[in-house]
């Protein structure tokens, strides 16, 4: 009896998580998968097993081009946020000595996040617009004759807003892993005659990899699933995968959107698997 209880305990302990994940993760994804095979018209969805939602999605050059575009955003935003994230975290972890200052500066990093995502994004519009702050300043200072058009409603605007929105998701995990790096390792390296750059390259960077990996997962998944930033900052001129889905949903083409979502899920999961393959995040936690 006692034996049975001790064997059942781990299962009982896992039950709450199982229920939550089952209801809020597994079940919706299962429904998504089922619906993606249904038929539809403007009035409703009709259960069945049709593969044309996938055929239409995968057979259209729009899908490929849109995935290309979204992956391009993901790659550029990832590179920039990883660069910024690493240096901000490095500064916080190794150059700021007092723990209290560290905490204060880290909180300063999070201040912009106290406002809504949408507001932070939209506030770029008056800054970058044709008659916006940047253009007024440039024209006023005589640097350019005509306002610079590509600042707003362009890929540049999309990437700028995304970096702004998602940089902290990179800073936080990297800062976290860097704080766990044993300072004596840095001292040992210095005693051994390593220069600052050698320490960063050979000691800190390898040890910060799990943080970079976690940050990368955040940033990549957020960019891949983004629709509002792309819609607003490109002025509807650029497409993203999620935006394509949203267009389909607003036209009540749910099965088509579901098929699209399943494809996106597979792509993103493969990307996350790839990141985890390169860096074992559990090793260093």
């Amino acid at each position, binding site marked *: 009896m006692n034996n049975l209880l001790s064997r059942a305990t781990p299962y009982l302990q896992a039950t709450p998580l199982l229920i939550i994940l089952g209801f809020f993760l597994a079940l919706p994804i299962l429904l998504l998968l089922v619906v993606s095979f249904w038929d539809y018209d403007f009035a409703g969805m009709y259960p069945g097993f049709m593969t044309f939602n996938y055929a239409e999605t995968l057979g259209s050059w729009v899908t490929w081009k849109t995935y290309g575009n979204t992956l391009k955003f993901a790659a550029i935003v990832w590179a920039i946020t990883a660069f910024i994230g690493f240096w901000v975290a490095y500064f916080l972890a190794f150059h700021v000595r007092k723990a209290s200052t560290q905490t204060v500066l880290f909180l300063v990093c999070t201040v912009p996040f106290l406002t809504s995502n949408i507001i932070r994004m939209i506030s770029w519009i008056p800054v970058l617009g044709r008659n916006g702050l940047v253009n007024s300043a440039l024209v006023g200072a005589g640097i350019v004759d005509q306002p610079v058009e590509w600042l707003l*409603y362009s890929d540049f605007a999309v990437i700028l807003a995304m970096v702004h929105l998602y940089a902290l998701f990179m800073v936080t995990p990297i800062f976290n892993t860097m704080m766990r790096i044993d300072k004596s390792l840095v001292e040992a390296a210095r005693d051994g005659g390593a220069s600052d750059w050698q320490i960063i390259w050979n000691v800190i960077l390898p040890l910060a990899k799990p943080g970079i990996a976690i940050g990368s997962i955040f940033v990549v998944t957020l960019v891949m699933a983004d629709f509002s930033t792309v819609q607003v900052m490109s002025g*509807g001129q650029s*497409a993203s995968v999620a935006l394509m889905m949203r267009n389909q949903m607003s036209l009540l083409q749910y099965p088509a959107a579901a098929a699209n979502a399943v494809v996106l899920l597979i792509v993103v999961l493969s990307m996350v698997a790839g990141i985890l393959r390169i860096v074992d995040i559990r090793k260093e936690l």
Partner: protein
Amino acid sequence: MTDMIKKTGISRRNLLKTGAAAVAGAAVGSGAITGFPTIWAQNPITLRQFGTGVSNLNAIAEKCKADLGITLEMTATDSDAAAQRAVTQPDSYDIADIEYWILKKVFPTGVIQPMEISKLKYYDKIVPLFKTGKLTPDSVIAQGTAPHTVGFVEAKDSKEFAKGETEFFTMVPTIYNADTLGIRPDLVGREITTWADIMDPAFKGKTSILNIPSIGIMDAAMIMEAMGNITYADKGNMTTAEIDATIDFLIKAKQDGQFRAFWKSFDESVNLMASGEVVIQSMWSPAVAAVRSKGIACKYQPLKEGYRSWGGGLGLAAHLEGAQLDAAYEYINWYTSGWVGGYLNRQGYYSAAMDTAKEYMSEDEWGYWIEGKPAVGEIKAPDGTVMEKAGAVRDGGSFLERMGHVACWNSVMDEDRYMVRRWNEFIAA
């Protein structure tokens, strides 16, 4: 204890009586409901109305409650959701407030019951545009889903639209308007006369069209035809070849950088115009008013090819019967009796029964909104905000000039699904 309850009961009944009398008094005083039975005040009836147009206006529900005692429960949705709900949840509403192109999709499924024209008190006051398609006897019938083509059926249980006027009306028209391009007169620097002007290389990177496929394609069609690129058999029902030609043209214009942005919501169109990012774009009339209310010059420019028009109406759910059906007719008769018409006209839309609406508008309001005359005093919106100063003239002029020059109506195409797919390609390209 019993005593107390009784007392409360009596006093509440007294209160109700006084309240009803006050309402009736006010109504009689304003002359609003002469000839209407006030029976609904004693026998409360609720009508559930959902849709895209007038369901957004709470003032109408309040006035209806005051005049008729009928409680209107209004739900506003976007047009695609409205079409779906009309068909899939026919018992969830009593009155459908939908656009005519949605009716074309929805009516054949049997969820809307035709109205008997003999029960419509103000049928003869409804403008002929909704009966024959001609505003004046010599008007040309516009392309697209013109309301009169889906306005009548032969019999009560018929699912097919009749060719001409019959005894059965599918919807009572409520709200409609003529759309065109909005411009910044201070920034375009020249006369704008045609839909083709939006493609002028001088405005490269300073134009926008709306990213709602079913409406955007119509604006694109107006532009295509104005440029002389193509002549459509029916803009409102393109063939796949015509859709291809139109989308290919849009994709080329986009890649040449003609457009600054594509807008999806009302506020986006206002901001694009107000910030000067675009100087000429597809626009809706309340958006033009919103830009102007910021003190920025904006004009709803009439164009020689004519307007793209839209219109909506009220239809009766198939399940309505008995007292509820009577109440629904009562509501629709009240609706066309003038107060609502005046209210809509004052917002810059048009009422279907113009003669009755006239009685609820001042001479100056009627002159400005409907006759295209210069305003004598300040023109105010129903909520009291000043819309135009004295001397202003409505863009496009009078009702007859505007609604008399409709080139096409919003519509649903047979190749709808193909069109949406190609439209998505245009946005992704």
